[in-house]
């Protein structure tokens, strides 16, 4: 998983049926430099992920990428490649 800051939500007009009722968030991945600085900045290339945890804007999530992002919907086939797995409360990376 990578870490990402929730920057917003996506509402779809038309979508594949499998996305019906699912929440999409825009994530900005966090670099180690920004994580250590705790400056609230991300620094990575933004992406869209499915969120079932109810993450709010500004919160940091850990998101799964790849085939495993669709596992929570097993045995349904959902064309998701990013999924919010954790809403982070705290990270301790002090040396």
């Amino acid at each position, binding site marked *: 998983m990578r*870490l990402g800051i929730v920057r917003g939500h996506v509402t779809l007009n038309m979508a594949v049926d499998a996305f019906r009722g699912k929440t999409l968030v825009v994530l900005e991945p966090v670099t180690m430099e920004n994580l250590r600085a705790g400056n609230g900045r991300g620094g990575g290339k933004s992406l869209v992920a499915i969120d079932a945890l109810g993450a709010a804007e500004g919160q940091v999530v*850990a998101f799964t990428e790849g*085939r495993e992002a669709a*596992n929570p919907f*097993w045995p349904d086939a959902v064309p998701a490649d990013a999924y919010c797995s*954790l809403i982070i409360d*705290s990270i301790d990376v002090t040396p």
Partner: protein
Amino acid sequence: MFLARIEGTAVAAIKHPTLEGCRFLVAQRLEADGSAAAEPIVIVDWFGAARGSTVVVSTDGDIARARLGNTTPARMVVVGLVDQVQLRKGAAA
């Protein structure tokens, strides 16, 4: 699989139900020259890897699925604690 250095721990109260009770570590992927990737990763650890130690991480979700069930989104898992990595000098360049 790749090498990663453990930088710390992550705590999350709200998570996918299959991840309840898992230990989450924050790590940085390592290159052969010892440099670290810009973005940290959060990995599941069942070995008790220590901060500062080097581990091998697999991105295959099969181990996680076997342990946590078919619906788990867990993917990156510590599959070994590294004793030593021997690299020929200059080979990384």
